[in-house]
């Protein structure tokens, strides 16, 4: 049984262990993302009852069940809308949204764009394996051209979506890419994403060892290049980020592409939240004279 950290003692990795162990395939990239998230929360020492991990549907979306924080396992593709509601209702909560590429870029594409535009203060980790796993191997919005799957046995003829470029274009204020095979690096990105006050997008390569035989750990390892290793790279420069976002193939940048801190998050801009604490803690009753006023407007 998982333990519960109280305010009196520090949060440990053991506290964050879920009620059950993950049932992902041995070797799945999602293990690395879960471990990095747990490490990041321990390093940041955020009490587990103040964290809500929200997911959609798919292999990676089972993650909330494997981490001992408040969790929601919502509908396929709808996580960001649910998470926006949670954050606006109680902005004291740390909201981490997890899911896959099909969930976020396919069925949830509309919410993805609009949640970025709104700069909702949450971290969105997409465990991107470029395939549909839980439905046993169909093409996803990030599957590469030519990739053969059960749904496109003659090879994918649709160009893949570029999540980093899309996030930049849609106005995400923190855009990063990590790799499940680079634990420390990924943990740091998660920590930064949680601390960023606005929408943080983290595209995390999370290889599917069962259905994606093209984009494997072995395929990624020589290709991924950390932006942090480029001293000249300026993550405050949107245009530079957009240029880096175009790289794919022999060199694939990972790390923090972009961050801006000069615009308020949605809850920061919401006038109703300007005073009075989280909405969920407020009294349901209005002052009697205010309610009378509403009726008198109609006289």
């Amino acid at each position: 049984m998982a333990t519960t950290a109280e305010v009196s003692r520090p949060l440990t990795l053991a506290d964050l262990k879920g009620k059950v162990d993950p049932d992902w395939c041995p070797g799945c990239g999602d293990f690395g993302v879960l471990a990095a998230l747990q490490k990041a929360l321990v390093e940041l020492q955020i009490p587990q009852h103040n964290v809500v991990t929200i997911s959609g549907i798919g292999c990676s979306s089972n993650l909330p069940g494997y981490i001992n924080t408040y969790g929601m396992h919502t509908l396929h593709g709808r996580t960001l809308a649910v998470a926006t509601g949670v954050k606006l209702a109680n902005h004291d909560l740390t909201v981490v949204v997890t899911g896959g590429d099909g969930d976020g870029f396919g069925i949830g594409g509309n919410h993805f764009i609009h949640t970025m535009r709104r700069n909702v203060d949450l971290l969105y980790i997409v465990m991107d394996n470029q395939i549909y796993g839980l439905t046993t191997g169909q093409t996803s919005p990030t599957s590469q051209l030519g990739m053969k799957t059960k749904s496109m046995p003659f090879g994918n003829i649709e160009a893949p979506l570029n999540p980093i470029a899309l996030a930049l274009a849609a106005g995400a204020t923190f855009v990063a890419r990590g790799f499940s095979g680079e634990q420390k690096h990924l943990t740091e990105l998660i920590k930064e994403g949680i601390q960023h006050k606005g929408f943080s997008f983290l595209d995390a390569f999370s290889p599917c060892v069962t259905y994606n035989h093209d984009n494997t750990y072995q395929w990624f390892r020589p290709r991924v290049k950390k932006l942090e290793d480029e001293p000249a790279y300026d993550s405050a420069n949107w245009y530079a980020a957009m240029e880096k976002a175009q790289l794919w193939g022999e060199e694939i940048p990972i790390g923090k592409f972009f961050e801006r801190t000069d615009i308020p998050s949605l809850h920061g801009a919401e006038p109703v939240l300007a005073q009075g604490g989280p909405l969920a803690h407020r009294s349901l009753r209005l002052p009697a004279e205010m309610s009378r006023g509403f009726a008198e407007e109609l006289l």
Partner: protein
Amino acid sequence: MKQTFAVSIGGAAGQGVATPGDVFAKILTRRGLHVNAYNAYQSIIRGGHTFLTIRTGPEKVTNMGDRIDLLIPLNQDTMNRHLGLLGSGAAVIYNADTIQPGIPADGVQLCPLPVSQLADITRNKVAQNTLAMGAGLNLMGVGFQPLEEVLTEQFKKKGEAVVNENVAVARAGYEFAAAHFKPFLNPLPMTDNRYAVLSGNVALAMGGVAAGVKFYCAYPMSPSTGVLHWMAAHARKAGVIVRQVEDEIGVINMAIGAAHAGCRAMCATSGGGFALMSEGLGMSAMIETPVVVINCQRAGPSTGVPTKTEQGDLWQMLGAAFGDYPRVIAAPTDIADCFKIIPEIFNIADRFQCPGLVLCDLLLSEGRLSVDPKDLDFNVPIDRGELITAAGGPPSGPDRDGIYKRYLITESGVSPRAIPGVPGHVHTAATDEHDENGVLLSDEYTNPAKRRAMMEKRMRKVAGIEAAVKPPELIGPRNADVTLIGWGSTKGVIQEACEILHEQGISANQLPVRWLVPLKGDAILDILKGCQHTIIVENNYSGQFARYLRSETSYVPDGYIRKYDGEPFMPHHIAEAVKEQLAGKTNLSVPRHEIMV
């Protein structure tokens, strides 16, 4: 028969039908009179045909009625369409410069206004409207003072010159009528009552705020958009976060997110938007997070007739989202009830942690009714059920293992609900079937016993919901010749149809159904057992309620009255249909709407 008076104003969209409507409604309610207003319009911003009917009287006016007493056509098209509806005693006021009257029925007074002689039409584009208001109020026996007051309020922001000009134009119309036209036989009475005038959408929004809604989100869709507008305009004052979302799928999910974090959350839409929300309702039921969703029905299917009314979404609501789950569906029976029903359904949704659905329609949403301000009392009972917040809550239940179980199996089916942020109650709420701890069954290799236990736990809530809701009651004489069964918005018009029938020697009563789920079928059967001739009245093609009642109770009525042309029932439609059915001519009547709008 009650004393009522109806004035109808018609013209193209953009010609200014709304302003005279608002002015009349204000003057009438300030006189202590009741009003009921219905606007027949099209999905068009400029042009087309808009026809607003305001009916007034000293007693409650429950519907648009059968008779127009005063017609104000703002263009030739309106004159052509509606002059023929006027009967003896009615009058028509029109711009003699631009409109030809045609041939009216006997006893109809034609009241032409020489608009260009009475006002400077080059400066005042709506002079004909203002003149007609002045003339109309004169014929109705209302002094000029109230009109002057309302016009002054209306144009105050535009400065004294505009106020003076409009008052002068109105006075010219008033005096011209006094000199040239015959007043109506019965001048409008006056009472000391004071009424608020509001639409169903405003009532729904205010009911939400009274219930303690702190989060409202929506995607604009006629005829539900008025709820969004009121909420947005009052958001800061009332402390409600109001968000416009990218689509209705986002709407329902965002509302559920806010509700899950502890707010009372509400959203409104129409049939098409509701269709997009249905998967979300299943989530609300499965994770047991209450949310209230309003469907303001319009004529369907598909985009349908966006500005016309219908009761065609009952089966959509009954079947929304796959799988079996507890839900509550209520249909407000008039505009005042739109206010009342929201806090009621929130209490049920909170207590039983399930979706609460409100089935309204365009007739109520966009219609207007005078309501005693006392009936808009925000001091309503609030019951959040077994909710555990940082501030406390009920005990977390008999924790056999000393841990909190979000989906604890209980006799009532209700498990104490902790909101995120409360220490010691960390759990995951899952849309996959789960065990008492919220662990996915698929993570434990699907377990039929646990699945069954969880299904039964959730469905046990149905008994509690059933007990929380009152059965419908028969209105009118006990042993009537005919019993009219309706649901939701038809209550008012059926009531008047019963009065008409009574005057014609046929006693009639009504069973208005307000709670659709739970239906209270046994109680309904008990009532109907003693009825002589039963007819189900509803605003749809297939008799959706009749089919529902039959499926729940095996009850088959003697007849049906249905209407699906986009317009609401008028009292005579129902009264005449009842007569033809009692005479044995048919058991299915589909009244024809005579007003071409």
